[in-house]
């Protein structure tokens, strides 16, 4: 191999290593027997995994995070798809402004969003409630759904919709039977983004969390900040496992679909 190729390979390998390095630290740490985060571990044990499944604060925050993320996913799919339709298909003045507003939550620093929301939600009694989390996370997740769905709509062959209407399908039926099935893969992609956006959210969630309701990422954050609890490492490892299986599952699904087509 020529030197340039060797250098390229080395660079690629180093970059990959750099990206997955945290995994090599976190996973071993989760199996440590030490009461502190310790790397590399001296003694091995499963006590932090045991702790996760027996400690109610960890279980409660996990369930809360899952519930919130599912609701956020559903809500932002509906809102995001509607917004994408309006942005791609609509004919009305100030369309660019509307697009800008929809995308704003990703552009504004999350700290500012968190602070503003905190000030208002405190008065409304929405802090430490699932509804409060769902509202904020949905605002943050909608732009990702809008991006994936509107790119699917832009490349969508509208003549198919014309054909459907010519064959007797009204606008709603046309959308349900022709448009929706054909953009479904993009909707699925948007759903994954929305779910992860909510499940992973720390910054605004720190403002909204409290003794009544804390999400998993915030629990992990305080697990390190306040008490240095190695359960955090166990949780991280399990999340990694879940993420990996999700991606592997999506990959297999795509392979199967390609085989069928």
């Amino acid at each position: 191999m020529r030197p340039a190729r060797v250098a390229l390979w080395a660079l690629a390998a180093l970059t990959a290593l750099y990206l997955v390095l945290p995994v090599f630290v976190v996973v071993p740490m989760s199996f440590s027997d030490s009461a502190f985060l310790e790397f590399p571990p001296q003694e091995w044990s499963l006590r932090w995994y045991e702790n996760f499944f027996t400690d109610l604060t960890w279980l409660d925050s996990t369930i809360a995070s899952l519930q919130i993320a599912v609701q956020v996913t559903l809500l932002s799919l509906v809102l995001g798809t509607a917004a994408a339709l309006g942005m791609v298909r609509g004919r009305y003045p100030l369309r660019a402004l509307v697009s800008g507003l929809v995308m704003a939550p990703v552009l504004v620093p999350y700290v500012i969003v968190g602070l503003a929301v905190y000030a208002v939600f405190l008065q409304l009694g929405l802090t430490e409630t699932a509804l409060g989390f769902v509202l904020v996370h949905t605002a943050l997740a909608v732009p990702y759904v809008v991006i994936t769905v509107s790119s699917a709509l832009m490349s969508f062959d509208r003549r198919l919709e014309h054909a459907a209407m010519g064959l007797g399908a009204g606008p709603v039926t046309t959308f349900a039977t022709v448009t929706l099935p054909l953009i479904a893969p993009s909707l699925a992609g948007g759903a994954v983004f929305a779910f992860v956006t909510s499940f992973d959210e720390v910054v605004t969630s720190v403002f909204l969390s409290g003794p009544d309701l804390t999400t998993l990422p915030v629990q992990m954050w305080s697990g390190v900040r306040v008490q240095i609890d190695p359960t955090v490492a166990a949780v991280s490892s399990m999340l990694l496992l879940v993420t990996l299986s999700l991606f592997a599952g999506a990959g297999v699904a795509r392979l199967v679909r390609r085989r069928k087509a």
Partner: protein
Amino acid sequence: MNETGGSVDVLGVGKTYGQAVALDDVTLHVEPGEFMTLLGSSGSGKSTLLNVVAGFTRPTSGSVTVDGRDITHDPPYKRDLGMVFQHYALFPHMSVAENVAFPLRRRRVRGAELTRRVDEALDVVELGGLRDRRPAQLSGGQQQRVALARAIVFRPRVLLMDEPLGALDKRLREQLQLEIKRLHTELGITFVFVTHDQDEALTMSDRIALLRDGRVVQVGTPADLYDRPASRYVAEFLGESNLLPAANDSEALLVRPQDVRLSRPGADLPAGDHAHDGKVTEVIYLGSGLRVEVELRSGGRLIARTGTRLDPVPRPDDEVVVHWRQQDCVTVPA
């Protein structure tokens, strides 16, 4: 036979896009059960007119009626017209059978009746064996047949087709032309067919409406348009034509190449024939005949189509007399 065909009336329809005029005061009557072809060059407004009838394009002025009922403001899905597009527009996520079932499901046809009618429509276009395939697994001709089946399965009274054969190769196109013609006879419904191919229009149509720059320049049977064109434009659009100066300046004489005969100078000509002296400039062998180009001594040139067994076979630079019968030439407004 024509009991199931609807009549279509386009009344004073205009369509402008900003400054551009796509349709200019078009009025057209289509008889129940008729095969009407909209013919014209690219950009003449054929698709716009068809889309106004189908309901995809809102006319700027005028109205459209089917069987006397004004449908100008009805959305496409309430018009109950069949439509076939050049690009097929089959639903890629549905099988052939599901595609054909689509308009029936919209009309709440279910169960055994649904299956029976889908099978029937697929049989009509001879695609029964492919019902479970996806559109992507079909050839262009097969896809267009599915589109046809889908457009007729709900028994519309009028079928609209926008260059349905435009994307197919010549051989397949000719085969499908015959099939569509057969379908028209079998179904007895009204067909409005768009093409820019004059041969296609001449072979298939009961009547042809020739469009130019958003206007209808002539409506009539293929023979009307070919033999008695209303203008020079029509004469030149349909088939090859020879246009010669007539007695007065506002008219021209039209004689079709197959009516032109060639003789040697000095030969006896049938009484009453129009005759001109000229010189052969080009001879092309076409298999079915010869295409001979003659430069007239009086100026201008003329095309003659003859059989291949002329004696002698004309060659370039031969002196000839071109002649034709009085009844084979018509006067055309210039």
